[in-house]
């Protein structure tokens, strides 16, 4: 009996959690126009969330590109299709690895720092103080960070893909010796701007919304103690990563199954 009651309690708690999260999301969306008017706040957050992630995204993109070049070459060589290496690297990055890996790295780097910052502000009663000073903390603190995350993610994903393609070029053409002309020509022939690059950009925007929201919400809900904040940062990474991978499956099925 206790087990059934426990399941019931858990279900109710989960549904309530989803409801609270939805209300929070709507509250954040409602504050976006006002946050956009204070663009200085958004710009500062883009700096913290975007600029500070450039190094990790760039370096990761480069290495992923290297690996794709190597692995792609060895696999394609079996079927005599090494010339298609450029196409393989570009499609893998632009359609999937760019948006997804960037989102996962973003969750780990920028997401955790957002969660910790918001959690500590809540623990230090700064958000409460802001409320008592008649300033909506969601509009002043949360919304600018949300907008910044949604702006920064597609930029970082594009950077990742571009650097990755260059990495694949370095390994494939310079090191292994695949024909340079074929590398680019096959790529250009096979990668469509709208359905491949465009869909990749859409994916990265959706992931940006998801990861940033998860990070902000987890920080906002953290219990105001050191353990609470540390648990919250771990939760951000886990929840955001799983959400990104699930959304990726859904988006890929919607976008790429037709062609």
């Amino acid at each position, binding site marked *: 009996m206790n087990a059934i009651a426990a399941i019931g309690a858990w279900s109710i708690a989960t549904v309530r959690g989803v409801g609270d999260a939805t209300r929070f999301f709507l509250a954040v969306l409602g504050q976006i126009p006002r946050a956009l008017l204070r663009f200085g706040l958004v710009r500062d957050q883009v700096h913290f969330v975007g600029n500070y992630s450039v190094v990790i995204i760039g370096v990761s993109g480069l290495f992923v590109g290297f690996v794709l070049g190597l692995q792609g070459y060895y696999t394609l060589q079996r079927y005599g299709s090494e010339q298609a290496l450029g196409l393989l690297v570009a499609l893998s990055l632009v359609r999937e690895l760019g948006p997804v890996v960037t989102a996962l790295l973003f969750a780990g780097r920028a997401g955790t720092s957002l969660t910790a910052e918001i959690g500590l502000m809540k623990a230090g009663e700064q958000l409460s*103080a802001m409320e*008592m000073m*008649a300033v909506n903390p969601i509009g002043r603190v949360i919304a600018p960070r949300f907008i910044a995350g949604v702006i920064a993610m597609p930029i970082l994903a594009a950077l990742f893909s571009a650097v990755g393609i260059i990495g694949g070029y370095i390994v494939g053409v310079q090191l292994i010796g695949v024909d340079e002309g074929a590398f680019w020509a096959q790529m250009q022939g096979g990668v469509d701007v709208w359905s491949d690059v465009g869909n990749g950009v859409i994916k990265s925007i959706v992931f940006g919304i998801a990861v940033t929201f998860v990070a902000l919400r987890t920080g906002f809900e953290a219990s105001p103690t050191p353990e609470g904040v540390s648990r919250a940062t771990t939760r951000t990474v886990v929840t955001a990563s799983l959400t990104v991978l699930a959304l990726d499956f859904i988006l890929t099925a919607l976008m790429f199954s037709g062609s």
Partner: protein
Amino acid sequence: MNEPAATPVTDGPLVDIADLHFSYGARPILSGVTMQFRRGKVIAVMGGSGSGKTTILRLIGGQLRPDSGTVRVAGQEIAAMNEKALYVVRRRMGMLFQFGALFTDMSVFENVAFPLREHTDLSDELVRDLVLMKLNAVGLRGAHELMPGEISGGMARRVALARAIALDPQLILYDEPFAGLDPISLGVTANLIRALTDALGATSVLVTHDVAESLAIADYVYFIASGKVAAEGTPDELSRSTDPFVRQFVDGAPDGPVPFHYPAQSFAADLGLREGSR
């Protein structure tokens, strides 16, 4: 500044709390509290830890809604207000949080300037002058370029006080302003509270369990115990009171109406000895 939609009452007590009930989940915190805070006075609300003193402040500020009973500020009921009206009322209030709650990513100057920049259209020079004046009132004008991480706890609380009075509020709420301060800072803070209240003509509500300082500066004192007002009166009346609860508190006695021991079974039973055995 915008005036609230309904005209506030200008005579009578500034804050009127009637038969207030509040529970945190299943735990009842306040069970029928009635208090009145008169204008221009310093009122101390005292009680043991967990007695609901901070909850009363949050109910006045509208951060919590009571289960039953009313909280009126300037004649307007807080619990009945929508968010917009609440924000208008809050502009006339200042709140000092227990450890200051300064914004750690801004300097001292920017912290005090925050309410001015958010709620007024004053020019940068005017804002600068006002901020320095407020900081001067708390004695920290020279520290205005430091970051909150670079100043001591006592100084942080004074900066928070400067921030709380930035808009010259009518009602200032203090959450444990004396907690953890050294004797000099204690004296400074107590004097500041009294001086600012008189200078601004405001009403100050202190939530504290520091008996000595509060009795020295308060005009009226409320004692909260078991969710109700256990005693009230002027500091003189209370220091002469014979009520056992008041006596325990004022004298600082370890045991009395507020028990020393957390409720438990008998000591002998806990140690595994049978009742009555030797």
